């Protein structure tokens, strides 16, 4: 399986998109180039505000701008948008339900920056905040189209955004649609719900699993809150053998929990297997290493399927070939932390 690799899908796209939207302003906290808005700053200097390493104040300033009719787009690493400034996020932005866009980069274990940089419980925290909308992009097409979806929400939006080299899994003309999952395969035995970078990982294993005759309905979700897409509800309440969730997040409070809530509310009587970070912190290491160490990978998916159907699929690790082979040689450099 190989996909086109898009270099910095957010960078120029966001500049072009902002051209006819004078209400859009950008605030950053010392991670401007790292969040692909350095050129945006140079293009629109009069509506770019460097707030320094001071996220609590940045969130408050954004609230004030939003109250005056501007639409602030905060760009920093995902973890810095909610962990330190949680009170400001809640009282200054979420309670008044202001149009502030929190664009969080390097979610979960995508950063080698270690525990301080790893947003592994952001869904759990954000899902519990009233008025919050949560989006997560899974490929370059979604990284490009998520800004339209967020822009249309009259309330605060948190986005798990991708940067640098990003695979294009979905056709460019099939943008992210609010609260509408993508159906990647059909099947009645098992429902698989994936989001973010876990979708590409799942897609490594899916052809092999299907070859073995297992019937899997695979949905890719990008809207994490609200989490009431009728397609998702139907899929997680109708699988005959079980449901699997796969997320770049703690198994507590994220997509696995959201699916569990739906299943319980509907009385779905099949097992749920949550693939995610198993209630542990991570540490500084490569994404590949952490995915393997924490079991956020295709092997875990195969094992979960085997557990639910009660037989060994005899899929060898070497069959699950390298995740990604770039169609296009990328010139994207490693980004700063």
């Amino acid at each position: 399986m190989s996909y086109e690799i898009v270099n910095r899908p957010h960078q120029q796209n966001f500049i072009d998109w902002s051209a006819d939207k004078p209400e859009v302003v950008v605030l950053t906290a010392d991670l401007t180039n790292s969040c692909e808005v350095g050129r945006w700053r140079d293009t629109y200097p009069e509506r770019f505000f460097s707030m320094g390493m001071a996220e609590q104040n940045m969130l408050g300033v954004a609230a004030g701008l939003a109250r005056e009719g501007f639409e602030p787009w905060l760009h920093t690493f995902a973890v810095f948008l909610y962990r330190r400034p949680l009170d400001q996020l809640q009282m200054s932005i979420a309670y008044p339900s202001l149009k502030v866009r929190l664009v969080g980069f390097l979610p979960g274990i995508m950063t080698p920056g270690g525990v301080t940089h790893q947003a592994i419980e952001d869904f759990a925290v954000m899902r519990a905040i009233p008025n919050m909308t949560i989006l997560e992009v899974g490929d370059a097409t979604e990284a490009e189209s998520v800004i339209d979806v967020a822009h249309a929400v009259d309330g605060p939006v948190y986005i798990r955004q991708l940067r640098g080299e990003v695979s294009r899994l979905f056709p460019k003309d099939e943008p992210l649609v609010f609260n509408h999952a993508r159906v990647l395969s059909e099947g009645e035995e098992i429902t698989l719900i994936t989001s973010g970078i876990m979708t590409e990982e799942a897609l490594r294993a899916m052809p092999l699993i299907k070859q073995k005759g297992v019937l899997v309905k695979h949905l890719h979700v990008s809207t994490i809150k609200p989490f009431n897409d009728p397609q998702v509800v139907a899929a997680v309440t109708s699988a005959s053998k079980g449901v699997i969730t796969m997320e770049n997040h703690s198994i507590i409070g994220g997509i696995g929990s959201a699916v569990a809530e739906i299943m319980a509310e509907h009385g779905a009587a099949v097992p749920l297997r949550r693939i995610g970070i198993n209630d542990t912190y991570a540490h500084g290491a490569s994404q590949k290493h952490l995915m393997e160490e924490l079991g956020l990978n295709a092997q875990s998916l195969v094992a979960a399927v085997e557990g639910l159907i009660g037989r060994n699929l005899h899929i060898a690790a070497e069959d699950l070939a390298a995740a990604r082979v770039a169609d296009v040689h990328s010139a994207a450099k490693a980004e700063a932390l």
Partner: protein
Amino acid sequence: MTKTQRASDQWLAEVAKGIRQRVLGHSLKNNGGYMSQACSAAELLSCMYGGLIDLPEVPEPLLPRPFAGTPGIAGKNRETGIEFHGGRKPDRDRLISSPAHYALVIYAAMIESGRLHEDALNDFNKDGSTVEMIGAEHSPGFETTTGSLAQAISQASGIAIARKIRKETGNTWVFMSDGEFQEGQTWEALQAASFHNLGNLKVIVDVNQGQCDGPMDQVMSIEPLASKIEAFGWEVVRVDGHDTDAIFDAGKTVTDKPLMILCYTDPVRGLPIMQSRFPTLHYLRFTSETEKATYAAAYQEMSK
């Protein structure tokens, strides 16, 4: 009629007296209230609502709305208490009140200055009312929800930036309490406001040197406050917070920097019997009928 030019000395004195009297009367009726804040801030609030801040007029004292519900997505229940401050006018000032615990005192100041109907206090701390004990953005005269302190100055900075982008000539003011200078966010906001040259941002502080646990120099000292704020790039004026001339003079300070007016105040000014409760001044609750009678007598004296 509300004030936009400097009010007369007599008006300022009457409003200040009325604030203390109204808060004391309310505290007697309800067996408790934020009384020391009325004593410390009466003059600076009379100045704020008496022309120091160029707030748009309110034609007649307004009655508070009932609580409509919490705000939600798609603009639901987003009305704030801004109407009591005359709304948004590009060439006029705005006032964001930060210390939500001063709500009773702020309501009293707005009643005395003709912005809020005097019946409003009948709704104070009543279920279903916006006249909340800890003011929130739907409360009269409030625009932000800052019961968790030090969040207003950042939001006011955002408003000041927005007004600068739109080339509005009005200033954005923040009323703060000195305890908020213990919060890190305040200092983040101070550094950002000077970095972004927010000359249209002005802060007036009730430096009453007290907080919930007692005197600030025993809980967590913030001094030397003026020199610290100056070091953050602000223009700082330190005044006697009971001297209305000094407060108005401070407001006239010509500067391109954001302006901080530190009003040093006496938390028992106008009600000296409260000194016996020192250092527990944050909230006045009567411990006995005898004590209450003493305060009732002081109220009668004040009303003469």
